[in-house]
């Protein structure tokens, strides 16, 4: 089957730093892929290349049949790919509801009433419909991240990218966000998740990818990667981090 994300020999430099050194990866529709690896290994950079928040210097990325080359294609891809950030990045001057409806209206060209209906359904889904008229600063971190997920889902993306969605959260709020992500995974969303939450990976991941030094060192199902990795670097990392 044609992969929904096709990454082929991608290289990325930040000045002299060679952040991605030839990454190739195919992700199938409905697959949940978790990326782990030490700090600076290029996890975020790879994720950000998929929706072109970062330009890459060499290689190819094709998302849902659309190559990331022209500006129109990049915007087309971005409407198909939702992204959730470590720091939530909600729009602080807009209410929760406006956060979720704005892009629906100006990008998807939906009417106000339709956008609001979709937003309320999603707030219901992430468990905080009562916060629709609150402002981001009035929410806890876990609630903000759930709004951020709802905001991304409102665009009906085919793919969701998560960059350490729980690592800025207090421990007691991590689970509420992971629960939303788990539900999403069960519903068949294609997900690429940078996260070191083992519980989530074991429950949801089809594949775990270990990156180090800008390359994919090893990949496999979570049961194998976490218990029986073949590469020394993977073993060393797991013994330190997990």
């Amino acid at each position, binding site marked *: 089957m044609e992969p929904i994300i096709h990454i082929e020999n991608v290289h990325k430099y930040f000045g002299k730093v060679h952040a991605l050194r030839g990454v190739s990866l195919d992700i199938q529709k409905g697959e949940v892929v978790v990326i782990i690896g030490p700090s600076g290994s290029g996890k975020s950079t790879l994720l950000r290349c998929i*929706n072109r*928040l970062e330009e890459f210097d060499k290689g190819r990325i094709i998302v849902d049949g659309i190559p990331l080359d022209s500006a129109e294609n990049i*915007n087309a891809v*971005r*409407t198909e*790919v*939702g*992204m959730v*950030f470590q*720091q939530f*990045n*909600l*729009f*602080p*001057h807009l209410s929760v509801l406006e956060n979720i409806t*704005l*892009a629906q209206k*100006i*990008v*998807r060209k939906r009417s106000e009433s339709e956008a609001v209906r979709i937003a309320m359904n999603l707030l219901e889904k992430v468990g905080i419909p009562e916060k629709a008229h609150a*402002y981001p600063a009035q929410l806890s971190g876990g609630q903000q991240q759930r709004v*951020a997920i709802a*905001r*991304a889902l409102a*665009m009906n993306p085919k793919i969701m990218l998560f960059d350490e969605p729980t690592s800025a959260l207090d421990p007691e709020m991590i689970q509420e966000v992971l629960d939303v992500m788990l539900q999403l995974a069960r519903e068949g969303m294609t997900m690429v998740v940078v996260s070191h939450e083992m519980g989530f990976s074991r429950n949801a991941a089809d594949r775990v990818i270990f990156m180090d030094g800008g390359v994919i060192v090893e990949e496999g199902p979570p049961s194998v990667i976490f218990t029986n990795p073949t590469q020394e670097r993977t073993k060393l990392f797991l013994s330190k981090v997990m």
Partner: protein
Amino acid sequence: MSTSTPAEVDPHLPTIRGNENVFRWDAGWLLVLAASALLAILVLVVGNPFDRIFRFVLDGLRVTVTVTLVTFGLVLVVGIFGALGRLSTAIPLRGIATLYVEVVRGIPLLVQLYFWYYAFPSIVRDLGARWNIESMKNFVANPYVMAIAGLTLCYGAYMTEVYRAGIQSIPKGQMEAARSLGMTYVQAMRYIILPQAIRVILPPVGNEFITLLKDSSLVSAVAVADLTRRGREFQAITPLPLHIYLMIGLMYLIMTLLSARVVAMIEARMSKER
């Protein structure tokens, strides 16, 4: 609402808001009232020569207000383009914007005004002579147009930097979140970045307005009959420097104090709107 007068506000810092400054806010209005009362007493109660001076400079006051408002409106627009240029990833655009800001900020405003009023028309006339174009040969500068152009170019550079600092104070993640939702750069600027930046830049923008109001007195040196120049004209006829400049100074003071109050009010309204 900010406790500080706009002059103290660092454009790089968002204003810190609190409610301990209600008193100061009142004190600001009190000062406006006191200055206005003093003016009224001088003109209406004390009378001669203050009433004569007041009536004489009144049309100059109108010129000062007009020049300031027109210039400021233009400056607000020039600043947007300047800031977008300064923040552009296109090197030629960024280069031009940076050159503009650096050159203009390095030359005294009075010298710039002299340039636009004296030097610029002579350049046009010289070129007209060389190319034999009648209208250019006989080019005469309208002092008002030249003064407003000079002030606009100068303050446009200052405003460019105010806007740039405001836009840059918005975390990068805001633009990234907007773009990842499929918004174009322009949409992200319009709906996400600028609305947030406006709150940050309002105090320094208000400060620019007040400084511009005061600096507009320099146009009196290039044949514009503003408040300052009208004062000097009165002085030429009736040498009463103490009375004249007390009057003129008081009139500027009332305008700047009032402007500061208006800026504070807008700020307060915005912070309530969140």
